[in-house]
């Protein structure tokens, strides 16, 4: 790999990754709403139309059931479609094509008809777009069997995970957080903009990253909550608390081992998620440690996640409900103090 590096946003890293995958394999093509001429509402397909033309970079009608269903059919006969559906909140209109077809056809064909497709979408709120454009739904897709679920927190991982997603022979739900992507119309978490090699490389699924080493408490996050955890860890350090921060990177497969090993060392587990709290990611992480060996806990594991409410519009209500570094800091301190 060359040493040429540039700092890229996640959106730029994704469009570069897709471009390289399309060059490498003519079976890769892209379709979705506003992905061609506009380059994607979130900029994740910018430049692809000019480079590859309208056959392989296809604007679709607003017909999610049809074009996601079509991706399943194309994948079944050897294509590798990358499909974008702008907001994860929109998946309700086409859920059948996702959880009954894409996710089940491999199983129902006894493995004879794999569905190698990537379904790319944007998640997350915090910018006043209310409850039909701000959800994460990580847990929903991770709960339903047959799909891999990937959530990058930075541009390096985004590019490498996209390579792994495109060459994977299974449906991959690729979830990009709006606060990280780097759009012109929304602020971006600076820590997500990192050095990205120009070449193709892979970041494996199912390998969490320890993004900050520490010995006192394990903070587990994904997507934007990784950055909140890092910010909280810096604040905790000033209080003499050495936090370890884990970026899950993928929920399916889930790297339970890295989480368990970390908690075995620190004895304290705080999981942070901006998806709904009940029946979700935070409960899964905590129980996966507890069922392996609950004696590792020096104090009860805790979680910070979105309350079980539709996402409100108005700023005071929305900010109240979201996780943030102060909530993480306060909960972590209480855990350290044995409260």
């Amino acid at each position: 790999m060359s040493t040429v590096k540039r700092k890229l946003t996640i959106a730029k890293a994704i469009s570069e990754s897709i471009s390289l995958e399309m060059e490498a394999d003519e079976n890769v093509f892209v379709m979705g709403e506003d992905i061609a001429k506009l380059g994607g509402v979130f900029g994740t397909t910018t430049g692809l139309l000019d480079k590859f033309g309208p056959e392989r970079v296809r604007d679709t009608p607003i017909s999610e059931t049809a074009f996601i269903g079509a991706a399943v059919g194309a994948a079944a006969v050897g294509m590798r479609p990358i499909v974008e559906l702008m907001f994860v909140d929109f998946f309700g209109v086409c859920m059948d094509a996702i959880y009954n077809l894409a996710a089940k056809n491999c199983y129902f064909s006894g493995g004879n008809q794999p569905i190698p497709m990537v379904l790319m979408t944007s998640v997350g709120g915090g910018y006043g777009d209310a409850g039909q454009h701000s959800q994460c739904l990580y847990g929903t897709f991770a709960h339903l069997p047959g799909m891999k679920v990937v959530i990058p927190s930075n541009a390096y991982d985004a590019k490498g995970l996209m390579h792994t997603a495109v060459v994977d022979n299974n449906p991959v739900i690729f979830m990009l957080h709006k606060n990280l992507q780097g759009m012109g119309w929304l602020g971006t978490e600076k820590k997500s903009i990192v050095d990205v090699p120009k070449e193709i490389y892979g970041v494996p699924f199912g390998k969490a990253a320890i993004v900050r080493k520490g010995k006192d408490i394990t903070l587990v996050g994904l997507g934007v909550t990784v950055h909140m955890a890092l910010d909280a860890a810096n604040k905790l350090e000033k209080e003499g608390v050495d936090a370890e921060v884990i970026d899950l990177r993928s929920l399916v497969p889930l790297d339970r081992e890295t989480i368990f090993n970390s908690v075995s060392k620190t004895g304290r587990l705080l999981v942070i998620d901006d998806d709904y709290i009940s029946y979700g990611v935070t409960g899964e992480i905590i129980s996966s440690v507890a069922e392996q060996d609950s004696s590792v806990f020096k104090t009860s594991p805790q979680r910070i996640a979105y309350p079980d409410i539709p996402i409100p519009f108005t700023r005071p209500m929305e900010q109240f409900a979201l996780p943030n570094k102060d909530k993480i800091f306060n909960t972590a301190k209480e855990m350290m103090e044995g409260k």
Partner: protein
Amino acid sequence: MLSDVNTLQWLYGSMFKSRYYEECMEKAYLEGKQPVFNMANGPVPGEMHLSNGQEPCAVGVCAHLNADDAVFATHRPHHIAIAKGVNLKAMTAEIFGKKSGLSGGRGGHMHLFDPTVNFACSGIIAEGMGPAAGVALARKLRNEPGIAVAFIGEGAANQGAFHETMNLAAVWKLPFVCIIEDNAWGISVSKTDATSVPRNDVRAASYGIPGEYIEGNDPLAIYDAAERAIKRARSGQGPSLIEIETYRLAGHFMGDTEAYRPEGEKDELFSKDPIPKFRKHLLESGTLDETGLKKIEEAMYKEVDDAFEFARSAAEPEPIEALEKVFA
């Protein structure tokens, strides 16, 4: 009008095979479910949607298809699978839940996949439409021969997936044909109570594509209409829509009392059973004599009997195999 003897023989043989298959399936299905019907019991548990009466739709269309052409069928898939050339032994073993079934017993009767002949079906109404369009798109993108056909029921023409996919296939000029099997009933709700137009072929106009309605459940008329649509698809002119009047001679599923049918409707349908009717046509037109027909029928009995024998004697999968094949 079709005069090729081989094709006529194939049409009859495939319909006859399909009907006999369903008769054998009905017997097998009812084993262990008497005197008190319980769907969970017997060698073939679960729902069972038999295709008796709808055979002309399958053969009239599939007669024009090769293995490269993809077919997506419905929750009532057996006649279409048989006409498409799905491996009959593996299909039957699948329906019996055996290890040597198409998917090792994971799918069953509503989820049959045979990629070697590009056949698939789904238990969700109209949801074969999108994937069929996707195969058509793949063929077009790769400049490969092969088209895609989605079979749906008349009730499915009120689904979003139908309208979305017809528009998509039309706007992208895909090599795609939608076949609507109009058996007049969506379980217990009649077409007249559910659909705003008497015939769905008129809906083709809203996608700017040709539509045809075929009356009489007649395999030869279906054959001709399918030929027009499939030629159009193969020559890059885009999709077509065909609705076929057909008859559901069985219930929606096994165990359906069909109390919703008007009195006498079933008797009238049985009097129009397409298989004896087509047999008579072949005899009267001098295409085949009694000996020729018997020979075809004997061959079909044997093929189906062999498939059921294979399925019955096949090994069960190990329960733990349930955990395999979620991912490729």
